[in-house]
């Protein structure tokens, strides 16, 4: 069975939804951050798949993927810093309990 663009798009959609479900359903901020990373990965898979199948000689998708990875790294750093700061102030990282605007 040959594998084409559609296979990768389905994989990307499934991974994205798994991440989405985690973001919506989990209570722990650390797990939510992990799920966001899964969603970003799903997006990059789609980008690279388009690059591979639609514009194989241009590499634009891969260039974009590099930017996405950069932003993902920045997001992880800032997100985890926020998380630790919240944990320091409230000793808790449960989203249902840190939804207050005041610390």
């Amino acid at each position, binding site marked *: 069975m040959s594998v084409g663009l559609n296979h990768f798009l389905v994989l990307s959609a499934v991974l994205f939804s798994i991440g989405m479900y985690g973001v919506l359903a989990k209570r722990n901020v650390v797990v939510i951050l992990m799920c966001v990373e899964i969603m970003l990965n799903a997006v990059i898979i789609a980008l690279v798949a388009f690059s591979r199948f639609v514009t194989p000689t241009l590499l634009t998708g891969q260039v974009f993927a590099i930017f996405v990875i950069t932003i993902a790294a920045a997001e992880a750093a800032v997100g985890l810093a926020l998380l*630790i700061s919240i*944990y*320091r102030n409230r*000793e808790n990282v449960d989203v249902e309990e840190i939804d207050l605007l005041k610390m």
Partner: protein
Amino acid sequence: MLKTEPYVLNMGPQHPSTHGVFRMELLLDGETVVDMRPIMGYLHRGIEKLSEERSYTQCIPFTDRMDYLSSMTGNLSLCLAIEKLAGIEVSERAKYLRVIMAELQRIASHLFGVGTFIDDCGASGTPFLYMLREREKLIDLFEMASGARLTYSYIRPGGVMRDVPDEFWPAVRRFVAEMPRYIDEYEQLLTGNEILRARTIGVGILPREQAINASASGPVLRGSGVKWDLRKADPYCVYDRFDFDIPTGKQGDAFDRYFVRVQEMRQSVRILEQAIRDIPSGDPLPKVALFFHPPAGDAYGRSETPRGELGFYLVSDGSIAPYRFKIRSPSFINITALCDMVVGWRIADAVAITGSIDIVMGEVDR
């Protein structure tokens, strides 16, 4: 930084670097030691109680097994106490032999102490084994004199067990001639080593006032800059006839304690040179019977062992056995201030500082 939760780490009784069965309960905040509690007694054999059932001479083997790295000085301390209690005179040659043995033992013990200290700083055995090379020669010398390699029981009340054999003298002369070169070698390897300096300078400071207040003795006290050595302050045997210096440290950190030990080895070589040169002929054997009855009363005899002031407080009721046999052991008292030295440092420093105090658990637990 982060709101961290301190946790208890049990270092010991079985741990690669606690020098025997010593246990440190460390309260840690991350890697920083917040509190420390030394726990000992795992090697407690009740020597003080056992000695009450034995004659004075029979007590001497106990001192071998207390500080098993410096049996000679342990023997010497007890014999000084017994001689003080019973008023026994010692011949000149025996006094010189005692000095020679004590100084050889000091070198052997410091070699071992410095070696294990460097090992605790993370050097994987090389300096340690270099030092064991020289200690081996010393042990051979002791074997010539006493027949044993670790538990000598050589020094007896009133003299020594027997005179040293003739082949002892060339061997000890050769050792004394060679030793300064070996000490230079250690210093080359260690004293200037940037990693060792970074690990030990300023680490585990025991200030001068606290060192005195906490009854520290030996290189720990002298490392803190106190010029107090019983060989000078309260000379026994014939130490007042020799010319030697008391090395002291500057600020009382782990490096100073290391450095004092190295310098003491040099001074011991100096003493040995003079003692070997001056030793009179004569009979070093004890003039007292194996069992004797000291008059009722008490006496405190002490000497400067490699670890500090080892004292024996003996109470006699006139019988052949001591009524009370108290050991003032330097290792035990030196760790009084260990907690203050360790708190605020990291785990690695706690190990290095404990190593720099150079405790022997046989003596701590007795």
